[in-house]
């Protein structure tokens, strides 16, 4: 459509921009930053800048862009995870803590408590949920929200600053690993998957919630129109940052398809790799088991 050709034109222009030197192409690899091509070393810096600037209105923008649906998607992710007391869980790129809070609430759920026996209560104290994010601003927002929700003093919640491609956790130490709307921002997805495989225990599960590709004919066009016209405009209005949301929309298109991503997860060593499309493919939850 017209929109797409405009963006392709922009992309061609950007190749000539100072962001990528032609001589440095010979020595370093380039990767995608939305529809732009950038050097790998720069991508994480640029992603960092994006999230620093959106951190404060991140949650509000999520609500506006998805019409509140992102909450349901995260609920689905957590129910698939099936958390249990005594679990050691790692939520990567989970800056503002959405998924982590839901997991904690699920474990502490009163209804569940009724069904438990004494042994479980002791085990409950061993629950640990690590929230790892590369961007300290996002973590700060998360810590504040934790206070508001009453998790401020909960020892189970641990906030860690770290890189998904080089986690500081030990091998075979986590029961669960989730990454919600974060893996597109990683420069080397294979490295992040390999790290996920490394830190998980035997029987541990990997779950990834990510915006993905829509193939349904008419819905696809509607979705494209919404993404490229409405979202950057919303970004400008609400967060005062059109560029970041332009990046967001482009990075979704550049991300591998559901099948391709499932293959990448399998290549990282996971078994029983499956994916579930939500809202016709707008969002997909990929899951894998480590053995």
């Amino acid at each position, binding site marked *: 459509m017209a929109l797409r050709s405009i963006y392709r034109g922009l992309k061609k222009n950007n190749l000539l921009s100072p962001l990528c030197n032609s001589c440095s192409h010979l020595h370093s690899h380039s990767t995608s930053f939305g529809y732009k091509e950038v050097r790998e070393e720069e991508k994480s810096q640029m992603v960092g800048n994006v999230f620093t600037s959106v951190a404060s209105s991140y949650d509000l923008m999520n609500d506006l862009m998805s019409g509140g649906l992102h909450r349901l998607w995260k609920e689905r992710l957590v129910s*698939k*995870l*099936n958390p*249990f007391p005594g*679990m050691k869980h790692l939520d990567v790129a989970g800056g503002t803590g959405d998924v982590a809070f839901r997991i904690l609430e699920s474990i502490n759920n009163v209804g569940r408590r009724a*069904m*438990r*026996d004494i042994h*479980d209560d002791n085990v409950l104290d061993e629950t640990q949920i690590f929230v790892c994010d590369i961007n300290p601003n996002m973590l700060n927002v998360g810590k504040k929200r934790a206070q508001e929700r009453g998790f401020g003093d909960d020892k189970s919640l641990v906030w860690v600053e770290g890189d998904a491609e080089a986690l500081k956790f030990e091998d075979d130490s986590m*029961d*669960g690993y989730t990454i919600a709307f974060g893996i597109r921002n990683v420069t080397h997805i294979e490295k992040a998957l390999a790290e996920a495989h490394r830190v*998980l*225990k*035997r*029987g*541990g*599960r990997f779950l990834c919630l990510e915006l993905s590709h829509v193939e349904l004919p008419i819905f696809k066009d509607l979705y494209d129109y919404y993404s490229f016209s409405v979202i950057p405009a919303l970004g400008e209005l609400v967060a005062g940052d059109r560029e970041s949301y332009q990046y967001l929309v482009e990075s979704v298109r550049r991300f591998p398809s559901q*099948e391709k991503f*499932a*293959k990448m997860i*399998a*290549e990282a*060593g996971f*078994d*029983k*790799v*499956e*994916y*579930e*499309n939500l809202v016709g493919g707008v969002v997909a939850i990929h*899951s894998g*088991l480590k*053995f």
Partner: protein
Amino acid sequence: MYRSAARRLLPAVCRRTGHFRSKAFPVRFSAPIIHPAAFSAAAASENARNHKLNNFEASNSSSSSSSNEGRKPRVTDRPKAHWQEEQARVLQASLRHVISLGWSDAAMIAGAREVGVSPSIVGSFPRKEAALVEFFMDDCLQRLIDIIDLKEDLTNLIPSNRVAKLVRIRLEMQAPYISKWPQALSIQAQPSNIATSFKQRAMLVDEIWHAAGDESTDIDWYVKRTVLGGIYSTTEIYMLTDTSPGFAHLLSVVDFRDTWAFLDERVREAFDLKKTVQEENLDSVPY
């Protein structure tokens, strides 16, 4: 013929109930003529497990798809079945906790811990508690098949006694779990699980009739299985409230004497009914 095909099918049914249902495998009864073909097609896919199953799954149009390590299908023969074996081991271990924890997440978590695997694996079973119940049902069917193979004295009995004995053997396998069996029944009755539980019961009833020497190829085939299905279900439910003591009074073991009496009565009635119907049909012949 059915039995050997069923034996090959069972592990697949046990581990892939979700995937199998969306394949060509018949969920309901199918006419006897089609049956062998369906069984052998499924059996063939079992034999060529790694390659064929991958293709089957690729053609699955449901919202979830699975791909195993996509590297070299030949070499990874063992690892491909690996996670399924692990899941089966976890379920086997969980069964030991069912008596105390019921057919629930808690039993499966305890089972996973016992095997040395992270309890997160419980989340990967598509319908959690239902997976445990279905595993148990398949396990019992497999054990029944093994017993049928070993026991030669079945041929000495008249058909009605043979059927009654087989149903009794099968129900006795459930006896240890009887206190939690109502929960299992309610799990099986849930809408998302009912297709699988129906299929498992159909296989069970088919197996019993086959062992009892049934060779019908017409409407009788359906009638016999439906009737036996009814007898089996009612006896199963009767057993839930049966507290009649057995011969081992001293051990105060519930031996379900009343249940077996009930079962014998029902089977006898069914066979009598069959005789009555046959006589009616003969009477209607004008000679």
